[in-house]
């Protein structure tokens, strides 16, 4: 088997806060600092699918179809949403990038198939090379990025400098 990995990048904006339900406002503030207040991010989500290339179409999967699935399953649900109020976080789990990426995995896997969905990466910011400061958080699930080129994922193209 000689699989190809196809990665598509998506963005959405959402609000969240870090707070444990059993704690007072002061305790949450002490533990999480500024993260205890409601704030938001422009998230970047990279979805990697893996498979053999279909000889008829030359594609692993129609990326327009992937776009539809991710829009229906992820973006419609989380874009411009308050993540703490999402049903999945009702029990008081904190919508960290780590928890959110696992939730998105569980939502996408039944639609894309366990064989096809390979990895998710979630940034609480834009992708690496577009940022002027280090990323706030990157959550990768379930596979680590062993080697990743320049920032891994769908690396934005830096401007070419002509000498």
């Amino acid at each position, binding site marked *: 088997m000689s699989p190809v*990995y196809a990665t598509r990048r998506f963005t959405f904006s959402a609000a969240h806060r870090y707070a444990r339900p059993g704690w007072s406002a002061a305790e949450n503030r002490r533990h999480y600092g500024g993260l205890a207040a409601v704030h938001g991010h422009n998230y970047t989500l990279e979805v990697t699918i893996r498979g053999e*290339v279909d000889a*008829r179409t030359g594609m692993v999967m129609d990326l327009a179809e992937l776009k539809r699935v991710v829009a229906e399953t992820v973006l419609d649900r989380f874009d411009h949403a308050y993540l703490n109020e999402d049903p999945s976080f009702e029990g008081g789990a904190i919508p960290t990038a780590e928890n959110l990426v696992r939730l998105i995995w569980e939502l996408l896997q039944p639609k894309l198939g366990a064989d096809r969905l390979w990895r998710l990466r979630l940034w609480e910011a834009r992708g690496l090379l577009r940022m002027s400061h280090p990323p706030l958080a990157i959550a990768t699930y379930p596979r680590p990025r062993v080697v990743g080129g320049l920032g891994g994922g769908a690396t934005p193209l830096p401007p070419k400098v002509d000498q």
Partner: protein
Amino acid sequence: MSGPVVYLTKLVHFSAGHRLASPRLTEAENRTVYGPCYRPHGHNYGLEVTVKGEVGADGMVMDLGALEQTIQAALLDLVDHRDLDGDVPALAGTITTGENLAAAFFRMLEPRLPPGALERVALVETPNNRFEYGGEGDHP
């Protein structure tokens, strides 16, 4: 010699034209499957070439200058500012999707590098689309 195995990635760019059309599909099917990609268009492609190897006594996995020259001669000279569907003999008969290009570029580069050195080729078609190929087996 048994230095640590290190992965080294070189990023290069090229610009090329193409369209997606499968000879196995009718024109109507091609339009449905490929949408706007059925029309001739082009990209500023990014290409990441990852090699792996033990760090040698000179402190390097591979001479980056030599790697760059190899990529230039084996690939960029053939595809930069070309029509990928008509101007590149090595791609004859290939539907020039990101998937197929990543695999084709891997196969074009592999014999020009030391045995086992080429780990993976990643083709960055647009900032939102990336295609990776590493030969047999999984390359997570």
